[in-house]
C-alpha cells in the first residue's frame, strides 16, 4: 500500500451560494485552504478568522482541467486573463435555478399572476408586499397539477400561505395533485396552515379549468372531488409554482470536468454508489443544489459530507493499493481507447498514456477493451484466471453427466450474492467454479474462451443491475461482449445457450441460487461441451 501525496492542501469550490459558503467555512475551520470560483461579478463572502486561507476568484469560468485527484490543474478565464490553479480536490456547489410553470397552466406572468419566487420576495419586502397584498382578498397557489411538485416547493408555498393568512388576513387556496410533505416538519406545517385557514383542494382524476383573459384576473373552475360540488375561484393574485433545474453553468462544469450527470442535468449519475456527494471521478465532489433538489438542511448535510471527503484527501489517507492498471509502453500505440472508455477519467495523456494509480478504481474495462492487450492488472490476466479454473476440478467420475460451470461474478454484486446463497443454505451445483472479477467490464473474449478451453460446459457472467454498476457501464460492455460471442457461436457450431449473462445485487442470495441451478439444468440437457477434453 502506498499513499498518494497531495501537492498542496487546497480545495476548489465552484459556487457562491449558501451551500458553497457553508463548505468554505467548514473546510477553513479545520485548516484546509479554499479557493472559491464563481461566475458572479462580485462576492461579498468574508469568512470569520480561521486557520485556513481563502482566495476568492470572481467573474471566472472554467476552461479546462487536467490531472487527477490530489493534483488537479485548473485553467480558467477571468475577463481576458488566463488563470491557472493547482488544487487537491474540487467541490461543485453551484446554485440551482427556477423555471416558472406559467405555460403548463396556460397562464402568462402579469401583475396578478406571479411566480412563487416573486411571492416570496414580496412577502420579505414588506412595504412592496403591503401595497400588493393589502388590496387582495383571495390568493390561489397552483402546484404539482401538471408536473409533480417537490417538498422544497411545497414548503415555500405553505410558509407563504401561512404568512398571507396571518399577516394579511387573506384567504389562500392551494390547488395541487399530490401534496409533497416528505421533508422534516412539513406535515406539521401543513396542519398549521390548515388551522390558519388555508384551503387545500386536491385533484386526482380531474384538473381545474384555468382561464385568464389579458389583463383580467384568473378564473379557476373545478369540481371538488370530496364534496362533488362545483366551485369557481376568482383570485386577486395567482401564484404559480416553479420547476427547479440545475444552473446552466453546471452543465459546462460537468462537461469540462468529465463528471456524469443525471437525466435532469444535475451533476451526479443516478447511481447508488455515488451517495451522498461522490462523482465518477475521485477527488471531485458535488454538493447541494448542484446534485439534486434540496432543502437547506439537506445542503448543510451535503456540505459536511463534501468537507469530510475533501479533508480525507488532504490528510493523505487516500490509500492506493498497488494492483492498479498499468500500461505497457512497448505495446501501447496511443489509440486512446482506454482514455475514452475509462469511467473514472483515471487515464492521462502526456508524452505517453498513463494510468493514474490514485484515480484508478481497478475496474479493468481498459484491460478488456485495449485492442493491443497493452494494459495489465495483476490477477486479471486470462492466464491467471485459467489457472483458477484448472485448479480444483477433476475428471468426470460419476456415470451421469454433471456439467462443469464457470461463473464470472462481479465482486460488488454476484460474488457477494453467492456467499449469501451459501449462508442461506441453498444447494449450489457441485461443479461450479466462481471467478471473482472487479467489474464485468473487465471480462474479455479471452476470459470467456479460456473458460471453455479449460473444459467449462457452460459459462455464466453475473453482474450488477443496469444503473448500479460502480464503473457506470461495465455491465453494458460485458453485455456487448457476450452478445457478440453469442452471435458467433452458431457459426462455429457451438450452442449459444452455453453462455448466459444475468444481473444480480449483493443481497440476492435466493436469486443467485435460482440462476445457477437453472443454468445447470440447461447445460445438463445440452450435454458436455465439444471443447471439454475430459469427456
Amino acid at each position: 500500500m502506498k499513499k498518494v501525496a497531495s501537492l498542496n492542501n487546497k480545495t476548489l469550490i465552484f459556487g457562491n451560494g449558501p451551500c458553497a459558503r457553508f463548505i468554505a467555512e467548514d473546510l477553513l475551520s479545520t485548516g484546509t485552504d479554499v479557493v472559491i470560483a464563481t461566475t458572479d461579478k462580485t462576492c461579498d463572502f468574508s469568512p470569520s478568522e480561521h486557520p485556513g486561507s481563502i482566495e476568492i476568484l470572481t467573474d471566472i469560468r472554467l476552461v479546462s482541467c487536467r490531472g487527477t485527484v490530489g493534483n488537479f490543474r485548473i485553467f480558467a478565464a477571468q475577463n481576458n486573463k488566463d488563470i491557472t490553479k493547482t488544487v487537491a480536490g474540487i467541490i461543485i456547489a453551484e446554485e440551482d435555478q427556477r423555471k416558472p410553470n406559467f405555460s403548463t397552466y396556460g397562464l402568462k406572468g402579469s401583475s396578478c399572476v406571479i411566480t412563487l419566487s416573486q411571492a416570496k420576495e414580496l412577502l420579505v419586502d414588506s412595504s412592496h408586499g403591503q401595497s400588493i397584498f393589502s388590496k387582495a382578498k383571495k390568493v390561489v397557489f397552483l402546484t404539482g397539477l401538471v408536473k409533480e411538485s417537490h417538498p422544497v416547493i411545497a414548503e415555500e408555498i405553505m410558509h407563504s400561505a401561512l404568512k398571507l393568512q396571518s399577516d394579511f388576513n387573506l384567504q389562500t387556496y392551494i390547488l395541487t395533485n399530490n401534496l409533497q410533505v416528505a421533508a422534516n416538519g412539513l406535515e406539521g406545517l401543513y396542519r398549521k396552515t390548515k388551522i390558519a385557514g388555508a384551503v387545500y383542494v386536491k385533484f386526482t382524476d380531474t384538473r381545474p379549468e384555468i382561464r385568464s383573459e389579458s389583463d383580467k384576473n384568473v378564473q379557476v373552475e373545478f369540481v371538488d372531488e370530496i364534496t362533488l360540488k362545483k366551485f369557481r375561484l376568482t383570485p386577486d393574485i395567482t401564484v404559480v409554482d416553479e420547476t427547479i433545474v440545475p444552473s446552466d453553468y453546471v452543465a459546462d462544469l460537468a462537461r469540462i470536468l468529465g463528471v456524469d450527470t443525471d437525466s435532469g442535468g444535475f451533476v451526479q449519475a443516478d447511481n447508488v454508489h455515488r451517495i451522498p456527494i461522490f462523482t465518477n471521478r475521485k477527488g471531485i465532489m458535488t454538493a447541494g443544489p448542484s446534485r439534486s433538489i434540496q432543502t437547506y438542511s439537506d445542503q448543510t448535510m451535503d456540505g459536511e459530507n463534501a468537507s469530510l471527503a475533501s479533508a480525507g484527501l488532504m490528510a493523505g489517507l487516500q490509500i492506493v493499493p498497488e494492483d492498479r492498471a498499468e500500461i505497457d509502453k512497448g505495446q501501447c500505440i496511443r489509440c486512446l481507447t482506454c482514455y475514452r472508455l475509462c469511467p473514472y477519467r483515471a487515464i492521462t495523456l502526456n508524452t505517453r498514456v498513463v494510468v493514474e494509480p490514485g484515480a484508478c478504481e481497478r475496474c479493468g474495462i481498459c484491460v478488456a477493451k485495449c485492442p493491443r492487450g497493452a494494459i495489465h492488472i495483476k490477477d486479471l490476466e486470462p492466464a491467471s484466471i485459467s489457472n483458477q479454473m484448472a485448479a480444483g476440478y477433476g475428471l468426470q467420475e460419476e456415470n451421469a453427466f454433471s456439467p462443469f460451470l464457470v461463473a464470472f461474478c462481479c465482486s460488488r454484486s454476484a460474488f457477494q450474492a453467492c456467499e449469501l446463497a451459501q449462508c442461506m443454505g441453498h444447494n449450489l451445483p457441485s461443479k461450479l467454479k466462481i471467478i471473482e472479477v472487479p467489474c464485468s467490464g473487465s471480462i474479455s473474449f479471452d476470459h470467456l474462451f479460456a473458460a471453455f478451453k479449460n473444459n467449462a460446459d457452460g459459462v455464466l457472467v453475473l453482474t450488477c443491475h443496469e444503473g448500479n454498476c460502480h464503473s457506470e457501464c461495465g455491465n453494458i460492455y460485458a453485455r456487448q461482449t457476450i452478445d457478440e460471442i453469442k452471435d458467433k457461436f452458431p457459426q462455429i457450431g457451438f450452442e449459444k445457450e452455453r453462455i448466459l449473462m444475468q444481473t444480480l445485487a449483493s443481497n440476492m442470495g435466493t436469486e443467485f441460487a435460482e440462476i445457477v441451478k437453472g443454468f445447470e439444468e440447461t447445460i445438463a440437457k445440452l450435454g458436455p461441451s465439444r471443447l471439454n477434453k475430459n469427456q
Partner: protein
Amino acid sequence: MGNKNVLIIGGGVAGLCASVELANLDIHVDLVEKSDFLGGHAIGYACKAIGKTCVKCGACMVEEKLNHTILHPKIKILTGSRVQKVSNNNRFTAKIHCKPKYIDPDKCTHCRICFDKCPVDDAILHGSSKNNIPFFAINEEKCLYLKDKSCDTCRDECPEKAINLDSKATEYTKEADAVLVAAGFHPFNPEDKPYGYNRFDNVVTSLDMERMLKQVGRIKKPSDDTVPEQIAFIQCVGSRDSKLNHLWCSKVCCGSAMRMARRVKERQPEIDITVFYIDVQTFGKDFEQFYKDAREELRLIRAIPGDIYEVEEQKLKINYLDNITHETLEEIFDLVVLSIGITPGKDNGEIAELLHLKLTDSGFIESGPEESSVTNNGIFTAGTVRSAMSIPETIASAGSAARQIVKYLRPNSS
C-alpha cells in the same frame, strides 16, 4: 487522530456508515448494537430491481457498508450489547453489558446444522447478510437449554464445536472522546389500527414483505403458501396520523411500496396490485418516469381504507370511499400489505436519560451538534433516531455527523 475513540450506539445504516467514515480517518470506533446482528432493519430489505434495471432503493449499499465495517481493523464490534451507564469527565466512560457469545464467530462455518436440528421454532435465529458473523444466534427467550437445560442438540451436533451454551455475559468499560447516537427507529406497530394485523394471517407489514422478497423471492399468502391474486398496499399506516399525534411523513413508504409492488408485478404478472394512498411522495431522481410506469402497472386509489375484515378462505374485505362515485366500496383481497411508518425508537427515552439529551415533541432525538453548539458536549446524533429518513439520507446524515465529530476531536479545537 490515532489515539481518539468514538462510541457509537446503534449498528444500523447510520452507525455502520459513521463507523467506516471515522475509522478511515484513523479514529478507533466501538460499535455497540443491541441485537445479535448488525445492519439494522435495512439489512433485511430486498433488492427491488425491476428486470435487469436498478431502481435505486439503496438496500445493496447497506450490504456494502456492513462489509466495510466488519473488515475494518479500527472498528470493534459489540453485538448483543447495551450501554448501561455513561459518565462524563472530559472523556466519556461507558459501561457496556454484552450478552453471552453462545456461538464462536471464529469457529462457525455457517453450515446450518444447528439451525436445521434445533427442535424449537425461532430458538436459533439467522442473519440477513453473509456479513452477519456469526450468521446464527441463540434466542435466549426460546432456547430450551437456557430455560431448563433440557436440550443441547445444537451443541452436540455442531461439527466445529462452535457452540457454548454455558457462555457468560461480559461487562466492558470503554473510554470515548465522543459519543454518536445512531439508535435508529421503531417500525410502527399496526396492531392498534383496525387492519387486523397479527389477527388475520394475510395482513402483513411492508417489513414482512421486504423479508419475503429477500428470503423467498416470490410472494405467497402466509395462510396457505399459495400465490395471491389480489394484493392491496395501504400507505401511511402510522404516518401522517393526527389521531396518533404522528405529525410526520415517513418519507420512505411511497418509494418502498411502489418499488416492491412493481417488482412483484414484474416477476408474478398474474397478480393484480392496488395501492391505497393519501399523496404520492416523490422519491429518487427518476421519479416522473417511475411514477408513470407505476400508474400503468398498478391500480392507485386515493383513499385510506377504514377497516379490514376477514371473510371466507381467509380473504380480506376492505372498505373505502370511492372518489368518483362517492360510495363506500367493498373489495376483496388475498393479501394486504401495511406500509408502516418510521416512529421513534423504543429506547429513545432510556438513551436520552443516559446521555442527558432532550426528546422532540414527537419522541425523536435531534439534539446533536446544531442544538449543542452552546455546550458542545461531545454527543452527536445520526440517522433515523433524529427523524424519518431514507437509506440515502441516512448515509448523508452519518457522514455529516462524522464530520462534526472530526471537528470536535481536533486537538487544537476549543
